[in-house]
């Protein structure tokens, strides 16, 4: 009985493997996926955005990005609530040794540079590789460095949640402004400007800056909760 099942599974696996290798390559049916050409043509000519990935993430499927941001927010909130409950149950903290003064002064020196890099990455999201999610993560690593260098470094959860909520609300507000001005949610209603300018691309840089703030606040709160769960 077992042997029959194994042979059956192997046969099915081999069948699908054969289909995969015998199927025509992607290059041969290039004409079928015309949506790729639409993205590539419209990004430069209509949106005046140098980074096609940013144009797709924020403009062509901006609604999905709103969903992604919501998923991240829910995950952070859920993890925070679980860890909060756990901490109350255990009720004791292990004392960790502080980092040495060399690490402390080095972290102080590098921290502004990391924040600057993160801000640069999400402000220039429409011109260079990177964007809101990446820049926010870089900023969160800067806060992680400070948190492991100084044990008493504290971040106010209220300020974090205010930043997070404001960024999320403004995202939706910009989407609704597009609704009023253009006709669809997250319509690019502002002037697109000149290609490769910092102020170009309409609402794309604004929304990516908001995403950057939101991701940075969320991940910083997450790191803070995890680090202070054990003490």
């Amino acid at each position, binding site marked *: 009985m077992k042997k029959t099942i194994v042979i059956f599974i192997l046969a099915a696996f081999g069948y699908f493997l054969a289909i995969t290798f015998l199927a025509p390559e992607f290059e041969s049916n290039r004409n079928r996926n015309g949506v790729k050409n639409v993205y590539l043509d419209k990004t430069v000519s209509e949106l005046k955005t140098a980074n096609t990935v940013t144009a797709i993430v924020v403009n062509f499927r901006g609604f999905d990005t709103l969903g992604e941001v919501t998923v991240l927010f829910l995950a952070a909130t859920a993890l925070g609530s679980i860890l909060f409950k756990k901490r109350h149950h255990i009720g004791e903290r292990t004392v960790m*040794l502080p980092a040495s003064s*060399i*690490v402390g002064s*080095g*972290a102080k020196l*590098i921290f502004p540079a990391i924040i600057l890099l993160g801000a640069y990455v999400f402000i220039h999201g429409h011109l260079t590789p990177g964007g809101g999610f990446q820049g926010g993560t870089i900023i969160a690593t800067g806060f992680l460095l400070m948190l492991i260098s100084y044990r008493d470094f504290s971040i106010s959860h209220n300020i974090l949640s205010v930043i997070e909520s404001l960024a999320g609300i403004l995202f939706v507000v910009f989407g609704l402004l597009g609704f009023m001005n253009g006709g669809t949610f997250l319509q690019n209603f502002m002037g697109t400007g000149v290609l490769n300018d910092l102020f170009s691309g309409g609402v794309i840089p604004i929304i990516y800056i908001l995403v950057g703030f939101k991701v940075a606040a969320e991940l910083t709160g997450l790191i803070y909760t995890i680090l202070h769960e054990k003490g």
Partner: protein
Amino acid sequence: MSLYEIIGGILIIIGAAFLFLGGLGILRMPDVYNRLQAGTKATTMGAMSLILGVGVVKMEDSWTWIVKMSIIIIFIAISNPISSHALARAMYRRKRYPFIKSSDKNMDAYREIIEKEEKDEKTVMNDQ
């Protein structure tokens, strides 16, 4: 070939050689401190020389490249020693002391300690 390319190429080759030696050192050295020393010294010098070489090669196009590369070099000069210091300090706190009395041709000095610890844990578990 211009002078920039020759000087930059030499710097890149020096950097690559140092990075190779660093990798070899991490593979060959017996304990944590020796490995850290090999890794950090070689990466600091190797990466710095390599990045400077790229800056010199690209200086033919515009001089701003060397400024950008200098900023990266300053960042490496700050972060690399600090991180290896933190690693060495953590290992010292975990009571992994330098290995002085090592048997000859010992590639991994801590294997004996780790195996012994695992054996002890097993005996403890068997006793329970």
